[in-house]
């Protein structure tokens, strides 16, 4: 298990996260948790619904962006906030996973940001002796 799943960093107009993981699936799960945490504190989200997520990319970064963008799409169309993720099948250019959470409820969820999009600006996935590290900037 990576020491910390993710950390948030500043950008003039927007905000970014660094995510960490011992494996690529763990990295992707931590990136998703990091992104959702920008919208709402994870402890405010219950697991009442889940959605299967199947995405493809042309390399590891585009796959990570597609995975995160699918969560934004589900928020935009079904107002779903997620707190738990699993990844079943993982290949470098495709993945099949599941996200669990619940629809946004203005009474219980204190939103701190709404994310418009995942950007490609300085997006990276790097491997070191300590495992994997991803950087992603979001358009707020």
């Amino acid at each position, binding site marked *: 298990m990576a020491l910390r799943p993710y950390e*948030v960093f*500043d*950008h*003039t*107009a*927007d*905000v970014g996260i660094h995510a960490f993981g011992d494996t690529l699936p763990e990295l992707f799960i931590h990136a998703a948790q990091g992104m959702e945490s920008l*919208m709402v504190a994870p402890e405010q989200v219950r697991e009442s619904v889940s959605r299967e997520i199947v995405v493809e990319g*042309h390399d590891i*970064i*585009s796959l990570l*962006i*597609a995975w995160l*963008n699918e969560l*934004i*799409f589900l928020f*935009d*169309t079904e*107002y779903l906030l997620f707190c738990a993720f699993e990844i079943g099948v993982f290949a470098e250019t495709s993945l099949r996973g599941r996200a669990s959470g619940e629809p*946004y409820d*203005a009474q219980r969820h*204190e*939103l*701190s*940001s*709404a994310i*418009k*999009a*995942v*950007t*490609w*600006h*300085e*997006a990276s996935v790097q491997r070191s002796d300590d495992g994997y590290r991803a950087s992603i*900037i979001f*358009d*707020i």
Partner: protein
Amino acid sequence: MGKLDDKIPLERVDSYRWRIPQRYNPEMRVSGMVYADDVLIEQILLDNAMHQVANVATLPGIVGHSLAMPDIHWGYGFPVGGVAATHAEYGVVSPGGIGFDINCGVRLLATDLLHTQIRGKIDKLADELFSNLPSGVGGAGMHQLSMDEMHAVMVHGAAWAVEESYGFAQDLEVTEEHGCLAGADPDAVSNTAMQRGMKQLGSLGSGNHFCEVQTIEHIYDAEAAQALGIGQVGQIVVTIHCGSRGFGHQIAEDYIRLAESKQQDFGFHLVDRQLACLPLQSNLGKSYLSAMACGANFAWANRQLLMHGVRQAFASVFGKRTRPKDMPLVYDVCHNIAKMEEYEIEGQMQRVCVHRKGATRAFPASHPVLPEKYRAIGQPVLIPGDMGRYSFVLVGAQGSMEETFGTCCHGAGRRQSRTAAKKSITGKELIEQLAARGVTVRVHSKNLLPEEAPQAYKDAQQVVNVVHNAGLAKLVARLKPVIVVKG
């Protein structure tokens, strides 16, 4: 980032212009030109925006300069406040250079009310606007679209909205491109994008989007202000700032991904993946422009619906004194867009694709695309500042045609990150601070409000002074906020 020196070798051209020479990065095809005064340049140098101006200068087929307006700040790929023209024959279009919020823009409505006449009804008007304009996260739009309607919106833009009785035919005459960019093709748009758009037409969303009731605080140019119908100090006007919502975001995402996967095929080696681009003459490049036009048209329909909501709110509060017909649209401009336009470059007329990423078209008087009634004064340029201080109305000037591909700034420009802004003040404190300045606020999320605090932005007065003094646009009026409605 490309091969960059640590320090930007800025060369001062004059009081309002700074050049980034090509030697800064060997991959730059043209030099950079930044419009700023001594105060703004210091603020601009605090983030990575200058590197991004240099990065944009590496785009294939870029002509003139990679331009930066005085409200520039660090964006993704392009800086926000960046302008680049690429040659129509051998240049590229970069979907990231338009941005995620395709045709984010501003419209301004006039009323014949004076600030003194609405003082007793401010709260009522604020409540009415807040309930009429869906905003905030998860706020469904005013008009839930069927798939057939979605297609009509993509192709016809604001004209679809007028057909549906949201506003009047006259509104289209004073909307950039008459509220409909030609060449829109729904086949170029993914189903995913349409699904995101269908629920959101007629909604403000969140972030920096807003509706503001403002009063005219100062008039710089009486003749132009009269022509625009905003000629009286104390007069009430309304500004709407919004874009294409999730629909545009998804179109951008789809095409940045596509372009990014094709860079090697086109032989491009870009310094930032967000700059991924498509040759204008390629099928994919044409396809992006057709999809972008759909996004732009959705945004114009969106602002048309929101304006209808504003007119209804005024009618319900002030009755017969302010009917919808008594609230004419002054103008609507987009500030995230690419346009095919012609300019004289090195003595020859050339057709180029002008990317405006957080930058506003600013055509001068006598330009043939301007509506007849504004032809003598120039195209209105609407510059929102921040919610505490002021916003501005300018008109385009001749310098924009000679130097900046008919473009000037778009707003105040951020100077503080969202996190830093949140740390500096709470939502409650900010609402009290604004109330003390005579600004009434209605907001969905008090948590989000501090991100948009006035101190998070550059001083819009300094920004517009630069474009005025540099001859890109001319100051007409300064507007002071009275009511702010936000997500």
